[in-house]
């Protein structure tokens, strides 16, 4: 680990210790928050007892579906926009202002159409995740340096090989940014919809525990959720970093 990474770890641990001290000295009342040590203990208890196993499976499966659909859909949308000039001229202005509309406002309508199950939740998550993926893919495709393609043509590279050996690696940094965004937005979409209205899932359990003043379970679940999101992100970042290093060597 680099010096900076150690300093980051120090900040996180330091913040936890300061919080813990504030609780122990009674500055923050227990009604609002429980000390970090108890949060971790509760998180561990939830994991060990398997109490919310079904909810975790439900949420994680939805997140996986949403990520798959956003990444694949975003990539294909980008390809279509990139290769069909009419689509490009029509859709591009809308893509830039798409992020202005919070997709979550359509959730009520989708519940009425699809019922209260996983479908509307996955659709909302895909609405969150697909467009960032598409925008970044388009950016990547536009920024392929023409000279790369010319070199390919000079070497008589076939069209297919040109896509896999020149265009995709050249656009890769942008694709990875898109995937990272699609992943985090899918998580946000799934968890938020569960929070608003759902019959199961991590988000639902957190809001259920909140409604029942069950601070211990609530903070335990929040800690686990944050841990899952962080783990997902850092794994992705680690692998994309390694892959990019190999490709751009």
């Amino acid at each position, binding site marked *: 680990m680099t010096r*900076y990474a150690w*300093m*980051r770890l120090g*900040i*996180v641990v330091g913040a936890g210790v300061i919080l813990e001290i504030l609780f122990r000295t009674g500055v923050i009342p227990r*009604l*609002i*928050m429980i000390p970090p040590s108890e949060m971790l203990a509760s998180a561990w208890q939830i994991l060990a007892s398997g109490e919310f196993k079904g909810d975790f499976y439900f949420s994680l499966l939805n997140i996986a579906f949403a990520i798959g659909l956003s990444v694949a859909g975003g990539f294909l949308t980008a390809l279509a926009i990139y290769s069909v000039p*009419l689509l490009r*001229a*029509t*859709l591009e*202005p*809308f893509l*830039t*202002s798409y*992020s*202005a*509309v*919070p997709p*979550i*406002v*359509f959730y*009520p*309508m989708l*519940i*009425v*159409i699809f019922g209260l199950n996983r479908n509307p939740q996955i659709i909302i998550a895909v609405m969150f995740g697909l467009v960032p993926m598409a925008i970044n893919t388009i950016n990547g495709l536009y920024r392929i340096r023409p000279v790369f393609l010319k070199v390919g043509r000079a070497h008589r590279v076939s069209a297919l090989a040109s896509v896999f050996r020149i265009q995709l690696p050249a656009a890769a940094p942008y694709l990875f940014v898109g995937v*990272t965004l699609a*992943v*985090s937005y899918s*998580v*946000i979409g799934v*968890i*938020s919809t569960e*929070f*608003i*209205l759902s019959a199961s899932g991590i*988000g639902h359990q*957190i*809001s259920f525990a*909140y409604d029942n003043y069950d601070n211990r379970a*609530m903070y335990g*679940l*929040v800690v686990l*959720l*944050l841990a899952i*999101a*962080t783990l997902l*992100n*850092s794994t992705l970042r680690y692998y994309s970093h390694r892959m990019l290093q190999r490709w751009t060597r």
Partner: protein
Amino acid sequence: MRARQVLYTAGFIAALLIFWQALYWIFGARVLTPPWTTFANAWNMLKMPDYWPDLGESIRAFLIALIIAFGMGTIGGIVIGAWRACSEVLEPLLVNINTVPKVALYPVILLIFGLGIWSKVVFGVLHGVIPIMISSIGAVRNVNPIYVRCGRTMHLTHWQMLRRVWVPACVPEIFSGLRLGFSLTLLGTIFGEFFASQKGVGFLLMNAIDLRNIPTIMSLILILVVFAVLSNSALLAVDRRLHRTQA
């Protein structure tokens, strides 16, 4: 070329409206209201004084959140960005925090700030401030060093350096961040109103869901979408201008 672009845009909007109408024909009034009725409903809603307190509350919460998020984000971002070691340490941390689903923190904020306007404001700020900060850090750090060196060779004073070099070089990038922050703060504020509040557009929407009041749901969604798209287009126009004058 310009006229053609307008034609394409109009065509796309027409296609969306037809799609909407088709959905109505397929699913019926139990699920959604057709475009024309929805526009009429939304207009009536805006005219009715009954809804003004809620609209006012949402606008007020959103504006307060926006000011706080813009202020904290830009100032924090510039300070962190100008200090190299600090940005090396903090930026990955901020990026990571940004990807965490912030709804999960809602109960915490509610317990601290209560049911009033402030928890919505805090929730809006929470969504908007980090992306603004990240893009401000990027803006400050990505200023072309040649500009700075050039300013030094010309013996600019600190003030001139700030006014003639740093600000013009950073502002377009920071503004792009603000545009993103604007939408995210709106999202956060509406989110905040969804869960626990007694006033506001989000509250009305949640109430309408509980009552399965489809016309109200649809008109509120329409109002939100139109507001978001219009304000974003205005910001986008400013954004393009700033980037053009820079180039």
